[in-house]
């Protein structure tokens, strides 16, 4: 165990006796007793040490001595370290060799509620201000794409198309099949009471093609691909790959953002069509398995009720969702900070931004289609 004894001799010299084992694991004494002794009148002239009884030591004694030295400095009392072991003297010297730069220390305080509210509002406005140049850049890049002078690698585009198309099929299959099954099952229980089982096909068919196909794919792709875009671009920012692209004359918007947006906008409608079909298949499984309908009856009913306009509307919506997801993912990735946790934050906010955008767009579409009588 460590021991500290503070003595004051007749010529007002403070003698600090250090003894025992000083090991980090067992803690170290506070300098409070010393501070009261330093403030007691008459003020001590200097501080000396007696370390003859000192056994083992590590940083813990150094931390204590650093406090002693600081307290001495604050009270204007000189420190005489010449009786300390040489190693300790050197380390103490090292710890005090570089003075603290003025103004370096951060002021830490919890901001008040109003302050946080205000900062939140300001950052929301600032984020809005960042969206506009982003959209503008994107529009410019799109124009160059149409004029065929955008700078990007075609192989990247094909790879991205593969990543957000074919490679998304398994999860889209799973989810849309389940959505079809759940829709059919929930409605079957109700419709059976009226002997109207066959209308399960109507419900599943219309719901999938008008809304659910596009919406479920969009939510899936926001979590799967939007987050991946944000994480990838965020990491590229951290490792200065974006800077390297910019200085090499490849605009980030054309080289990275554009292929991602194009790939997702092209693939989302296909995924949506596929999801519509698999969802209907899920509904049919319940219709055939639980409601004693035949496959032919179920599909005939579906074909009769689902209008081409519904399907096209759903597919169109999914393309817009794709655009929103790709933009949100790339935007959040590009504005990521420069640390590992910032990349995680970018991925999270990409998903949240995409979902909010999707829901808002979904509401707008519902209103628009109603007004247009579609």
């Amino acid at each position, binding site marked *: 165990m460590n021991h500290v004894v503070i003595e004051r001799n007749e010529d007002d010299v403070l003698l600090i006796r250090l003894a025992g084992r000083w090991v980090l694991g067992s803690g170290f004494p506070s300098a409070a007793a010393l501070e009261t002794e330093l403030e007691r009148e008459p003020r001590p002239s200097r501080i000396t040490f007696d370390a003859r009884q000192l056994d083992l030591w590590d940083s813990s004694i150094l931390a204590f001595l650093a406090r002693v030295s600081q307290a001495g400095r604050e009270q204007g009392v000189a420190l005489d370290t010449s009786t300390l072991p040489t190693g300790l003297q050197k*380390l103490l010297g*090292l710890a005090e060799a570089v003075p603290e730069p003025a103004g370096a220390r951060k002021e830490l305080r919890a901001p008040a509620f109003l302050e946080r509210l205000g900062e939140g509002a300001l950052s929301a406005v600032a984020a809005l201000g960042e969206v506009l140049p982003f959209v503008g850049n994107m529009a410019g890049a799109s124009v160059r794409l149409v004029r065929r002078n955008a700078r990007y690698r075609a192989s990247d585009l094909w790879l991205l198309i593969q990543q957000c198309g074919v490679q998304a099929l398994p999860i889209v299959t799973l989810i849309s099949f389940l959505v079809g099954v759940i829709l059919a099952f929930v409605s079957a229980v109700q419709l059976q009471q009226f002997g109207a089982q066959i209308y399960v096909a109507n419900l599943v068919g219309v719901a999938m093609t008008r809304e659910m196909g596009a919406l479920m794919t969009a939510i899936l792709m926001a979590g799967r691909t939007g987050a991946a875009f944000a994480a990838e671009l965020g990491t590229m920012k951290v490792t200065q790959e974006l800077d390297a692209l910019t200085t090499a004359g490849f605009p980030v918007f054309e080289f990275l953002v554009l292929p991602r947006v194009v790939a997702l906008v092209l693939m989302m409608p296909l995924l949506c069509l596929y999801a519509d079909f698999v969802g209907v298949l899920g509904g049919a499984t319940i219709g055939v398995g639980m409601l004693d309908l035949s496959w032919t009856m179920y599909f005939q009913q579906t074909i009769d009720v689902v209008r081409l306009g519904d399907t096209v509307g759903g597919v169109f919506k999914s393309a817009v969702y794709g655009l929103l997801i790709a933009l949100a993912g790339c935007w959040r990735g590009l504005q990521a900070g420069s640390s590992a946790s910032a990349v995680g934050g970018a991925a999270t906010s990409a998903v949240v931004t995409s979902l909010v955008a999707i829901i808002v767009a979904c509401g707008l579409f519902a209103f628009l289609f109603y007004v247009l009588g579609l």
Partner: protein
Amino acid sequence: MIHELGTGTGARPCISVHDLTMAYGSYVLMRDMTFTIKQGDVFIIMGASGSGKSTLLRHLIGLNQPAHGNIYYQAENFTTADSGQRDRILRNVGVLFQGGALWSAMTLSENIGLLLQGYTDLTPAEIRQVASLKLALVGLKGFEDYYPSEISGGMQKRAGLARAMALDPSILFFDEPSAGLDPISARRLDQLILSLRDSLGMTVVVVSHDLASIFAIGTNSIYLDVPNRAITASGPPKELLAGTQDPTLRSFLTRGEKP
């Protein structure tokens, strides 16, 4: 972890490597390496880029497993040790990675404090005090509450050193300590390494190809030779420079100057 007064720097072996072969799959990087690092040494692992210096360091701290051979910490076989033993041995070891490898989601004080929190019973106030001390030792007094991304590369490196020293290890590993530092900071880091060794009796293992630093601080060294895939020279760097006949080592130690 504890430094006994008056022990000085004895000649006890601290790390011994026997017949170590390093390989990635079937590609053998270096074979049959045998050397001993003594307590209190500043031991330099030198060699050209791609010679496997950093890989050797990764083997020494257990991040890579040897294809063949053993590594001993004092009398304990580190290669065959189970994870509990390994953890115990590694508590005595601090590593400064090339880029500092600070945890970016934590402030400098938290980076150091995490280790103290995990392996000592110190109170939060004491942890903060020790963390401040460690930062002061590397000349970063006042930067406790900064995040790694808010300070310069050289400062990150020094903060990495403060973290490596958090638990007062008896062995410190440095992977390219001077990489990315200006000459003056590199020299200051060298002096810091020396004074830490002198006052705490640490053993220091440095992976480096910075000649100025090698000659300034090295008390012993090995040279990893790429064409032979083996250690072709060992000894204090200055003696190697004076005595070697090997043309590749000579050219390495003289920056390729013709004799």
